[in-house]
């Protein structure tokens, strides 16, 4: 029966994608190639799921793949889990648009892995069973700690999941032109099939397959791109510096300062910091959340329960680091290669975030938009991106479902007295619930800006999960009170601060922007350069308090700007201009402008209708009260502090008694859950 269901799901996903293909980066006559590659990948993963399903009967097999995953396999799977579409397409895109600052993003992602291995991975493998709740329940009150751990796990996974579903839907639409709703449902059905039938074993192998595909695709692209320069690094970088497209992009980014720079200097500037990252305090806050949050991400933590020994846990981090690090070195070439071969203008034309840099580079190195090979390459990269989204989503769903089934149902409701069959049914049922929720949220959140949700997921993980794990493992005095209060305060602060941060929609700002588009802007006088102004105090950097002077970034000198016409007037002007043009290239450009202006006009009009009469955000604020986009800077220290203070205020005998046992166990792995016989 399983086989039929799995095959049915695969067929449904493929047929629905075929039927709803519209326009995207892939030209219509080459779409069949994309679907052939999609189909191949789906067939392979479905076969793996079928094979895994036959071996998945017990809870240990469902949650932890029977602890039979080797260190090398787990390393690849961690890489597959971590290299989301955001890091594959997003970072290559950021590098292609902003140069050096794009690399800093990739380093920022990898930095975290050191803390994961050194501080968290091994002890967790040694004392845990399947979930974060198990680790905390080792010394603390099982019911209380499992409940908060499960709620926190589900919260973090949901934020991350929503971002992945929405991002994935948009991405597939941009790449292949499949309708957004169909993409979301397709991803959801596939991911559910892997998780429900094959559990952790299928999820692990889907992640391994995806990581191998991703690395292969990147190596091939880099060989083609770098090969043009005889594999010389200085030669390649020199090509970046002298490229007119890169120079034009830098000139656009630095504004009027460009007038005093030679073309060579502009190109060189692309390889220096400061083009993308502006407010330094916000960057530190995001950096803290990323670095410390990784160690508290439930789906990453869960991967360490799948290996049989501590040695394998170490080996898996080593492999994961090597793969992810090597991959990020490749993205340098992908990003810069896309910048010189495709050019920032064409990349931005398809997607404002730069996500299309790597796919367009693939098309270019294969021979361009009209060639068979170019489109085959593009199809391959599109299919890899698709596999990436499905694999990451599967890992997240499994983590959320295990918190629901293992912590809440079995641990709290049943008091750890559930039969093995009952536990597996609960696990599968929870996966279905979480999966359907993910699809529903993905569809409901269509068109929302979800980029900040990833930052928020990391912030909650860093402020809530990390302090709890860290103190449970390393501090004798830590106890249930500290852990529970710390986790709740950490998570609530992180979420609460985001609700009053610039990430939310503030109607007044939207209305002002919409009126600007429709009515035009008055002329602006020439302005002199002004250095960055620090805020009047540290508190003023963070909150919009009365009497505060806010941080203002550096401003370059600018010449006088003429008044901008409103959208309707601009359209008339453009249409008049179109009538006088004869050159095909100019006509195409003006037509593009007209389409863009019409789009902006329609958006401004709908915004005006939507927010008319509203003056405050969801939280009743006229403008953001918390000034950073990421809450980490405040919520992380607060989470740690609460665990310390509340642990010291109360005593918990069991927590102290269990310390010795934990101490031995976390270091030696004696009595840790061993591999099940296979």
């Amino acid at each position, binding site marked *: 029966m399983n086989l039929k269901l799995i095959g049915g799901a695969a067929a449904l996903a493929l047929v629905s994608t075929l039927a709803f293909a519209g326009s995207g980066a892939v030209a219509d006559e080459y779409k069949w190639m994309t679907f052939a590659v999609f189909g191949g990948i789906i067939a392979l993963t479905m076969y793996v799921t079928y094979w895994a399903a036959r071996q998945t009967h017990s809870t240990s097999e469902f949650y932890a793949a029977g602890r039979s995953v080797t260190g090398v396999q787990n390393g690849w799977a961690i890489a597959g889990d971590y290299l989301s579409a955001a890091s594959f397409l997003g970072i290559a895109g950021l590098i292609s648009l902003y140069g050096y600052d794009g690399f800093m993003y990739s380093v920022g992602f*990898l930095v975290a892995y*050191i803390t994961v291995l*050194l501080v968290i991975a091994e002890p967790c493998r040694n004392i845990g069973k399947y979930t974060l709740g198990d680790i905390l329940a080792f010394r603390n009150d099982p019911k209380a700690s499992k409940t908060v751990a499960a709620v926190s796990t589900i919260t973090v996974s949901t934020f991350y999941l929503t971002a992945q579903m929405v991002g994935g839907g948009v991405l597939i639409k941009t790449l292949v032109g499949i309708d957004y709703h169909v993409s979301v449902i397709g991803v959801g059905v596939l991911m559910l099939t892997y998780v429900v039938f094959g559990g952790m074993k299928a999820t692990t192998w889907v992640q391994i397959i995806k990581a191998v595909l991703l690395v292969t695709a990147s190596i091939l692209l880099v060989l083609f791109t770098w090969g043009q320069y005889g594999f010389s690094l200085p030669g390649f970088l020199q090509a970046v510096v002298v490229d007119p497209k890169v120079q034009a992009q830098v000139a656009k980014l630095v504004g009027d300062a460009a007038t005093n720079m030679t073309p060579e200097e502009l190109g060189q500037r692309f390889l220096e910091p400061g083009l993308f990252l502006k407010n330094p305090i916000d960057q530190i806050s995001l950096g803290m959340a990323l670095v410390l949050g990784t160690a508290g991400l439930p789906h990453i933590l869960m991967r360490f329960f799948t290996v049989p020994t501590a*040695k394998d846990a170490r080996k898996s981090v080593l492999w994961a680091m090597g793969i992810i690090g090597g991959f990020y070195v490749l993205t340098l070439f992908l990003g810069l290669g896309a910048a010189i071969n495709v050019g920032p203008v064409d990349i931005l034309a398809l997607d404002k975030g730069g996500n299309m840099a790597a796919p367009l580079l693939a098309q270019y190195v294969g021979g361009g938009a009209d060639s068979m090979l170019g489109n085959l390459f593009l199809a391959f990269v599109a299919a890899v991106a698709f596999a990436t989204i499905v694999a990451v989503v599967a890992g997240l769903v499994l983590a959320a479902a295990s918190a629901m089934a293992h912590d809440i149902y079995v641990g709290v409701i049943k008091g750890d007295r559930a039969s093995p069959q009952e536990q597996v049914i609960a696990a599968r049922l929870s996966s279905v619930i979480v999966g359907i929720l993910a699809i529903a949220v993905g569809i409901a959140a269509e068109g929302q800006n979800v980029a900040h949700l990833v930052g928020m997921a990391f912030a909650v993980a860093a402020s809530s999960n990390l302090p709890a794990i860290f103190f449970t493992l390393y501090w004798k005095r830590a106890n249930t009170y500290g852990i529970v209060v710390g986790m709740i305060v950490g998570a609530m602060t992180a979420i609460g601060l985001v609700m009053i941060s610039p990430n939310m929609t503030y109607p007044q700002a939207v209305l002002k922007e919409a009126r600007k588009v429709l009515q035009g802007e008055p002329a602006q006088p020439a302005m002199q350069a002004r250095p960055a102004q620090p805020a009047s105090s540290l508190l003023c950097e963070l909150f919009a308090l009365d009497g505060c002077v806010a941080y203002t970034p550096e401003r370059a000198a600018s010449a006088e700007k003429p008044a901008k016409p409103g959208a309707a007037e601009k359209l008339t002007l453009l249409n008049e201009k179109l009538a006088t043009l004869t050159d095909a290239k100019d006509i195409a450009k003006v037509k593009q402008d007209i389409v863009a202006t019409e789009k902006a006009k329609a958006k401004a009009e709908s915004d005006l209708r939507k927010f008319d009469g509203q003056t405050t955000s969801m939280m009743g604020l006229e403008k953001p009260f918390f000034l950073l986009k990421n809450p980490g800077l405040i919520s992380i220290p607060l989470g740690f502090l609460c665990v310390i203070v509340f642990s010291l205020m109360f005593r918990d005998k069991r927590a102290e008694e269990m310390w010795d046992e934990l101490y031995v166990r976390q270091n030696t792995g004696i009595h840790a859950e061993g591999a099940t016989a296979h």
Partner: protein
Amino acid sequence: MQLTDKHREYWSKNLRLTAVLLAIWFVVTFVVIWFAKELNEIVIAGFPFAFYMGAQGALIIYVIVIWFYANKMNQMDKDYGVHEGED
């Protein structure tokens, strides 16, 4: 299970190793970024030092740190007789 002196010794060695490696990690990551402007005075093959660190250097050092930790801990597990599995 009782804690023996051997366990304590193993644990303190483990902590010391972790602390040293975290310190290296901190320097490579945060100190280099903080002083990026000053370090950029050093130019190798036409490109500034911080560029190399950002592009590859930091990544390579991270992998070496992890490799060192894994090896050292595997060795320690054997020396203290707490390794798992056959090997």
